[in-house]
């Protein structure tokens, strides 16, 4: 992908080793909890994989209806897979038909005679294989597309559309792609994270964004594949596998060939007050799906800096990146699928602030050389002064090409005013194209002075990162979060939304998808 890797900084590898070992023990600890439990959303994902989709007369998605019915009878610990398979055997109907029967109370899944696990596996084998195959096909399709219509050099231009109306989004996304965007993200309607289900069908209304639905995914995918034929450049599609429906959205994305997912291990906990136990379990399965589908995840460390100060809290971003990395490994994600995030959020009026941004960006680049680092633009310090804002985005673009970032979420000059107009996006793309091209190889031409301000700043951030990671590894991550070490936000262990959705697995819990993915991804 022609990544620009230059070791401009001297990075103390001993510290890096300490960071990684601390992260490992942090993740081990979380994994114990993950392995013991499942969640309603994980089970809904399994139901979707078995072909259950659509909504009932009341608009409730069928996956929710099936899973909730079993959950009410307290039998979800066995896994929805078992109950559906069992019902298939009993009724000879498809899972989807069964879901409709459940909705109409024509059947109680837990009330049927229970068959052996082996029989159940057998009964659902074809459905299971079909889904797994579909996902593999989509991954292959992406690989083919990329070989025929490759993306440009990094940093890739990533823009968002957020009209609320999927059809309007399509026009804007296609326009952006024609003006040079490499990646299109459809921002979700405000706080879809908080919905404990996935809306259904094509949507034309939303606040601050457009609902993530499978139909919307399909519509946008088709539109982008069209432009690609025109421009000769495959356009990556992004959405948000975040919040209470995290794994379901990954499933939809895997099937509809999304290419990236915002998919952070802790975002929901910190920024959406979702219960942490719930989130950790969800992210594990959600990420495993992304891993298997060849989807690149984007983590949300940028969000920390919207509440915390970018100078003082710089190290918390790196700490979170290490933790996200380690947890991602456990879901089978490869380094080149880890779009670890950070942001250009230092107050623009600080003297030498740009130097600190360079230090941070270069440090992150060198700590995670194989990761397609996601660089987020200035937002918090953007004001109604669009002219100055455009300049801040210019410096942001320069910092990116200078430090070899991979995924460049383009800043908008109207960031402080409204969700982007079409022309705002065009101006941002013009901004990035100008700077990237005009300074294309600058990175190869310059070195940072040893013991200079930039090197010193990087040293400091890495040291603070190490200390914090080791402290967390002692007390445990859950404890750390409850003490508010990230983004000055503290979340109680059992507080937050969706706690009720955590269900302890029975010893005979059944989820062949988990098994297949683990096997395919080589997870222990």
């Amino acid at each position, binding site marked *: 992908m022609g990544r620009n890797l230059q070791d401009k900084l001297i990075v103390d590898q001993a510290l890096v080793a300490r960071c990684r070992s601390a992260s490992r023990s942090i993740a081990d600890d979380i994994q114990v909890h993950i392995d013991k439990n499942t969640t309603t959303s994980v089970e809904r994902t399994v139901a979707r994989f078995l072909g259950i989709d659509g909504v009932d007369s009341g608009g409730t998605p069928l996956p929710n209806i099936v899973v909730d019915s079993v959950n009410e009878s307290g039998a979800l610990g066995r896994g929805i897979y078992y109950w559906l398979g069992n019902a298939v055997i009993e009724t000879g109907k498809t899972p989807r038909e069964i879901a409709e029967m459940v909705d109409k109370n024509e059947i109680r899944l837990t009330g049927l005679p229970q068959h052996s696990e082996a029989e159940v596996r057998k009964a659902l084998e074809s459905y299971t294989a079909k889904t797994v195959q579909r996902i593999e096909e989509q991954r292959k399709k992406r690989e083919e597309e990329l070989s025929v219509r490759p993306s440009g050099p990094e940093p890739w231009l990533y823009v968002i559309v957020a009209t609320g109306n999927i059809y309007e989004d399509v026009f804007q996304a296609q*326009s952006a792609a024609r003006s040079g965007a490499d990646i299109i993200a459809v921002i979700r309607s*405000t706080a879809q994270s908080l919905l404990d289900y996935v809306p259904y069908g094509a949507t034309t209304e939303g606040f601050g964004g457009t609902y993530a639905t499978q139909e919307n995914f399909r519509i946008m995918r088709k539109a982008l594949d069209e432009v690609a034929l025109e421009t000769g450049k495959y356009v990556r599609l992004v959405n948000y596998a975040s919040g209470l429906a995290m794994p379901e959205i990954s499933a939809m994305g895997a099937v509809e060939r999304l290419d990236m997912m915002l998919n952070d291990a802790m975002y929901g906990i910190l920024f959406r*007050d979702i219960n942490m136990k719930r989130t950790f379990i969800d992210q594990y399965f959600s990420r495993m799906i992304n891993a298997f589908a060849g989807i690149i995840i984007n983590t949300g460390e940028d969000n920390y800096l919207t509440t915390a100060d970018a100078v003082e809290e710089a190290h918390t971003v790196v700490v979170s990146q290490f933790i996200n990395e380690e947890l991602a490994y456990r879901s089978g994600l490869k380094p080149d699928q880890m779009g670890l995030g950070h942001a250009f959020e230092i107050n623009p009026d600080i003297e030498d602030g740009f130097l600190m941004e360079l230090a941070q960006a270069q440090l992150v680049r060198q700590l995670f050389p194989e990761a397609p680092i996601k660089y987020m633009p200035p937002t*918090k310090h953007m004001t109604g002064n669009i002219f100055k804002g455009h300049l801040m985005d210019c410096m942001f673009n320069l910092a990116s090409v200078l430090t070899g970032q991979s995924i460049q979420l383009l800043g908008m000059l109207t960031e402080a005013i409204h969700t982007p107009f079409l*022309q705002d996006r065009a101006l941002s793309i013009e901004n990035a194209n100008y700077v990237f091209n005009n300074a294309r190889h600058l990175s190869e031409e310059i070195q940072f002075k040893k013991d200079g301000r930039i090197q010193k700043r990087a040293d400091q951030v890495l040291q603070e990162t190490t200390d914090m990671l080791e402290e967390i590894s002692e007390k445990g991550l859950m404890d750390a979060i409850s003490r508010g070490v990230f983004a000055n936000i503290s979340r109680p262990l059992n507080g937050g939304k969706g706690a009720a959705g955590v269900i302890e697995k029975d010893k005979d819990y059944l989820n062949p998808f988990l098994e297949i993915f683990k096997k395919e991804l080589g997870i222990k």
Partner: protein
Amino acid sequence: MKGVDKKNLRAYGDTLNDGKVQLSFSLPVERSPEGREAARQLAAKMGMENIDVADMKTVGSGLTFFVVYGSCVHSIDATAIHIPKVETPVMSFYEINAYIKKNIGRKVVVVGACTGSDAHTVGLDAIMNMKGYAGEYGLERYPEIDAYNLGSQVSNEELIKFAVEKKADAILISQIVTQKDVHIKNLTQFVELLEAEELRDKFVTIVGGPRLSHELALELGFDAGFGPGSLPPDVASYIVQNIRM
């Protein structure tokens, strides 16, 4: 500025009353002489003269972005402008606490929240959190104030319920997201709820956010509104001097 006619204020580019204005917009036209003329005509309808369509750029299929300069013929009467502003004098952290001790004689209770679907807490935190903002302590730091920050995405119902429980003197609401006027809807519903429960004059009601002005707040039935750049003392000063007793 010298020679300004306040009754007929016009834009200033490089000479008084030259009316110079910069415009930019997109039109669903091709990048062409006709497109340029379309842009010119739109500018003309806006009251521009000596129109210079300085740039046009294709931004989507059949969509062109224009940069336009010209002289705007319109003028406005500045002498006729009168805007309601928060008049109560602003005191310092120390003065405010002293004022409460002296004139109120008990702790002042303040409850704040980002209501509706709004998850933007930074603004409210700037006003309420210990840490404060731009060097000013937040309300939580005031010894004479009991401040409760309920955080984000609180429903109007919850907020009112909580305020009643705590016998709050003031309710602070933050609204950052303004798309499709969600904030208007949300704030109106809040006031209606208060009135329905006949609690309207129990509390000093304050709303703030980057798109909010004191004027708008009054229109919506609040006591005061605080816009961009507001500081904790501005708010605290207003509360303690307008508190219902």
